[in-house]
C-alpha cells in the first residue's frame, strides 16, 4: 500500500515539476535507443557501457564533453530566449556563423594585448550576430514575415556569406579552403603557450590528470557560457525588460494593451538571441577552430541548440545540464562505432525520440493520470 501512495506522489510531482517531462522523455529516449540497437543485433547494455566509460573514465574525455557542450549551451540559450518572447529562432545556425566569421576576422586582422583582444573579439561576434538576428526581428515586426522562414533564409545567406568571406584575398590561407588562424592574443585555450613550452611539457608529464585534461583544447568558453546562462536567467526573471519580453510571449495582444511596445520587444528579443548564438560562434573560433572554413552544409550547432533548449525546458539551469547530456551522448556515441561496430547515429535517434516526447506532454500527462486512476480504483475495491 505504501509503495502505491509513494508512486502516486511521484507521478503528481513529475507532472508539476518543470523538468519532469524532460526526465521522462530522456528515459524514453534511452529505451528507444536500446531497442533500436537490440533490433539491429547489438547489445544495448554493452553499447551504453562503452558510451558511459567513453565519457567519464579519463580527464580528457570529460574535457571533450565540456568543450562540445559550450556552443550548444549558448545556441540553446539563444533559442530559449527568443522562445520566451514567442519567437522560434531557427536562425541560431546562421547567427553562429556570423559570430564565427566576425571572430575570425577581428581575431586575425587586429593585434592587441590578450586582455583587450579577447573581449573585443567576443563582443564583435556578439554585436554582429545580434544585428543579424535583429534582421529577423525587424522582418517579423514591420513586415509580418514569419521568423521561422526568415531565419531559414538568413541561415543560408550566412552560409554563402561565410564561403564568400573565406575565399577573400588577405584572409584566405594559401591553397586551402580556410582562413588564416586568429592571433594568439585572441585565443581562449587554457595555458596554450605554457603547455607547449618545454617546462610545461615536463610538468604535465609528471601529472597525469592535468597532462591528460590539457591535451584537449580545453578553454574558457564553458565558463563564459555559464556566465551567459546566469545573465539570461537574470534578464528574464529579474528585470523589467525580461518581464515585458515574456509578457509578449504569453499574450501579445494583452501585452500591447498593457502598454508594451510589441514590435520593439520582438526586435530586442531577436537581437539578444542572435548575440547569444554569435557568442557561441565567436567562442568556437577563439577556443577550438581558430579559423573558419568553407562549408558545404550546415554544421548543426543551431539545430542541436534547439534540441538542447527543448530538453532543458527553455530554462538556463536545464539548458546547461541538457547541453552536457547532449555533448556526452555525441562524444560517447562516437565510441560505439569502433568498439562495437554499432552505428553512432543511434544517438540522433535517441535525441529525436527525446524531443518527440517533449513535443507532446499531453501523452505523458495522460499516461500518468490513467495510471493514477487505475490505482485509485483498485484502492476503492
Amino acid at each position: 500500500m505504501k509503495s502505491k501512495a509513494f508512486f502516486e506522489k511521484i507521478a503528481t510531482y513529475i507532472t508539476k515539476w518543470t523538468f519532469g517531462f524532460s526526465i521522462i522523455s530522456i528515459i524514453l529516449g534511452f529505451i528507444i535507443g536500446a531497442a533500436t540497437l537490440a533490433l539491429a543485433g547489438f547489445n544495448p547494455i554493452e553499447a551504453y557501457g562503452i558510451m558511459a566509460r567513453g565519457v567519464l573514465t579519463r580527464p580528457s574525455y570529460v574535457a571533450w564533453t565540456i568543450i562540445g557542450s559550450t556552443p550548444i549551451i549558448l545556441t540553446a540559450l539563444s533559442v530559449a530566449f527568443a522562445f520566451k518572447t514567442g519567437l522560434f529562432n531557427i536562425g541560431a545556425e546562421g547567427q553562429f556563423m556570423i559570430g564565427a566569421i566576425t571572430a575570425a576576422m577581428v581575431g586575425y586582422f587586429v593585434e592587441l594585448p590578450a586582455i583587450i583582444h579577447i573581449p573585443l573579439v567576443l563582443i564583435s561576434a556578439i554585436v554582429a550576430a545580434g544585428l543579424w538576428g535583429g534582421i529577423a526581428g525587424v522582418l517579423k515586426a514591420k513586415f509580418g514575415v514569419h521568423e521561422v522562414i526568415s531565419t531559414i533564409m538568413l541561415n543560408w545567406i550566412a552560409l554563402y556569406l561565410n564561403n564568400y568571406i573565406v575565399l577573400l584575398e588577405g584572409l584566405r590561407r594559401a591553397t586551402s579552403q580556410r582562413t588564416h588562424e586568429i592571433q594568439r592574443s585572441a585565443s581562449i585555450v587554457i595555458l596554450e603557450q605554457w603547455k607547449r613550452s618545454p617546462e610545461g611539457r615536463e610538468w604535465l608529464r609528471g601529472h597525469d590528470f592535468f597532462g591528460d585534461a590539457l591535451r584537449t583544447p580545453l578553454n574558457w568558453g564553458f565558463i563564459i557560457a555559464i556566465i551567459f546562462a546566469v545573465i539570461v536567467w537574470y534578464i528574464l526573471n529579474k528585470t523589467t525588460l525580461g518581464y515585458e519580453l515574456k509578457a509578449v510571449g504569453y499574450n501579445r495582444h494583452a501585452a500591447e494593451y498593457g502598454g508594451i511596445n510589441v514590435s520593439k520587444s520582438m526586435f530586442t528579443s531577436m537581437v539578444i538571441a542572435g548575440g547569444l548564438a554569435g557568442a557561441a560562434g565567436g567562442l568556437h573560433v577563439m577556443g577550438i577552430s581558430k579559423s573558419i572554413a568553407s562549408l558545404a552544409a550546415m554544421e548543426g550547432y543551431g539545430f542541436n541548440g534547439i534540441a538542447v533548449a527543448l530538453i532543458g525546458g527553455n530554462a538556463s539551469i536545464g539548458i546547461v545540464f541538457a547541453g552536457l547530456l547532449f555533448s556526452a551522448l555525441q562524444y560517447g556515441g562516437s565510441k560505439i562505432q569502433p568498439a562495437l561496430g554499432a552505428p553512432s547515429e543511434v544517438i540522433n535517434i535517441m535525441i529525436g525520440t527525446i524531443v518527440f516526447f517533449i513535443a507532446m506532454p499531453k501523452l505523458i500527462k495522460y499516461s500518468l493520470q490513467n495510471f493514477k486512476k487505475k490505482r485509485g480504483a483498485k484502492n476503492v475495491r
Partner: protein
Amino acid sequence: MLDSLGFIIGTTLMYSTPLIYAALGGVMSENSGVVNIGLEGMMTIGALIGATVGFYSGNPWLAFLAAGMAGGGLALLHAVASVSYGADQVVSGIAINFLGPGLALFLSRIFFEGATMTKAIPLDNKMPRPIHGLLPRNSFLDLVFNQYATVYIAFLLVGVVWFLLYRTKLGLRIRAVGEHPRAADTLGVSVYKIRYLCVVLSGVLAGFGGASMSLAIVSNFRPTLISGHGFIALAAMIFGKWKPQGAMWACLLFGVSNGLVVYLGRSDAPFEISMQLLSMLPYVLTLIVLMGFVGRSSAPAANGVPYEEGER
C-alpha cells in the same frame, strides 16, 4: 547560346524536382492545418531507402515507391504527435529532423557494412529518361526535355495536387479543416482522419523528393545529400502562398540559381561571378518578396493549431 540556355533550363528542371515534391508535401500538410517542418527528415529517409532498395532490387520504380512509404512512415509519427496528442507541431517536426537523418545513417551502416554512403546504383538501374535518344543529342530540345522520369512526375503531381485541393470534395474538406476545423467538425468532417491523411501524404511526397535525388540526380545516398532541401522546400511553399502552383514557381526560382551556379562553374562559362553570391541570391530574393507580397493572412487560418475533436 541556345545550347547554353538549354543547359541552364535543363539543370534548373532537374534541381527543382526534389524541392517540388517536398514543397507539394508541405502544401498538403499545411492546408490541412498541420505545420510540417520535418520535411527535411522525411526527404532524408526517402533518399536512403530509395538508394538502398534501388541498389539491391535493381528496380528504380520499386525503390521510388519504397522511398515514398518510408517518408510516409516517418510522417505517421508526426501525425500521431500533432493530430492525436496535440503536440507543438514545430517541435515535433524538429524531432522528425533528428529521427530521419539519424535513422537513415543508422540503416545505411547496417545495409552497407558500416558505410554512411550507399553503393552506387548501376546506370541501367537508375530512374529512366523516357524520351532519351528521341531527340538529337545535345540539341536545345534534348537538353531541356531529356529528363529523368521523376522530373515529369513532379510537374504532373503539381497538377494532381492542385486538382485534388481545388476541384474535389476531399480537397474542399482538407481546406475547411485547415481554415476552421471546428466548423468542419460540426458538419461531420473528421478532422483527425483528414489531417492524418494529409500529413502521411506529405511524408510520401517528401520521400519521393528524397528518392528523386538519390535515384536520378545522383545514384547513391550520402550524409550531405539532403542538406537543407527540406527547409528550402518549406520556404518555397510559403513563398508560393501555400498553393501547389505557387510552390512550383518558387522551387523553380531556387532551381534556376542552382542551374546558373552549375553553368557558370563550367570552364566555358562566358563570364566570372562569385558562385557564393550567386547562390545567396534566391534566399535574399525570397526575403524581399516575402516583405512585399505575402501578407500576414495567407496561411491557412488553423495552421499549426492543434485541434481536439468535439472541442467547444
